């Protein structure tokens, strides 16, 4: 088990819980990439998740960056971080569900506005 597992797993678990609860506003920028930004005391933090369909199969990229200084807080590639590959893959699925749900919810609100 790598060192980063103990460090990163709680963060991934927390992001997963908040995503499932709909507390994180993930933005979809293309069919395979999502991100969200949060302002914290030390600056602006951006979290990105991407499914990469590489020549040797799919893998996931999970990246947390402090944007003003450009400092990488977490930079994960599940080809190398095998211990938490499933966790990241499940988070990606949860993010996809969140995005699909948001889209449906938006459509419902618009429909309600038209009807009333």
């Amino acid at each position, binding site marked *: 088990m790598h060192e980063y597992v103990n460090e990163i797993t709680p963060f991934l678990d927390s992001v997963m819980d908040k995503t499932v609860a709909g507390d994180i506003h993930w*933005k*979809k*920028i*293309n*069919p*395979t*990439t999502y*991100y969200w*930004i949060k302002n914290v005391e030390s600056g602006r933090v*951006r979290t*990105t998740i*991407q*499914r*990469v*369909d*590489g*020549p*040797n199969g799919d893998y996931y*990229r999970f*990246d947390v960056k402090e*944007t003003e200084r450009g400092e990488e807080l977490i930079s994960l590639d599940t080809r190398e971080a095998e211990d938490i590959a499933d966790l990241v893959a499940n988070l990606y699925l949860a993010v996809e569900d969140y995005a699909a749900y948001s889209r449906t919810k938006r459509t419902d609100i618009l429909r309600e506005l038209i009807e009333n």
Partner: protein
Amino acid sequence: MAFLQAIDFYIFLVIGLLSLTFSWLAFRAAKGAREAAIEAGKTVKLQTVAVELTEISNKLNRLDDKITYFNARNLLNEISSKIRRLLSNVSYLQDDDFDEVSKSISETLIKAKKALDNVKPTTEGIDEEVELESVYFAVEGFFFEISNQLAELIGILERKSFDLGE
């Protein structure tokens, strides 16, 4: 049959036979020269294709990590058509390795196109850095793969060029 006893007849006969022999030898030499020219032409063509493929490979190796979706799409279209044109220029080659690597390259180009479609921007006003990173990560593996396959192909062409030159 008086002419058979005339010396002139034999002189002209010998001259005629010598002419025929020289004509045949000249024909043989011209045919050999033509074949040599064709083989030389093939060697030059192989070397030219190898040089052009090397240029493509170098271009792929210098992939900008801030490449936009549209630039990546243009680059992929450009190298895709160039590679296909170059491969068809040397399609006369009878070599199993060449056929196999050519096929692999065609497959990788198709997969790269699909991978690029996966990062086609769907929303405006998004974080530009995230967009650029996502494009880079989507294509860099494929460009690396294509570059390796091109290197393999260049090696085969150099070997064939050497074989033809011998």
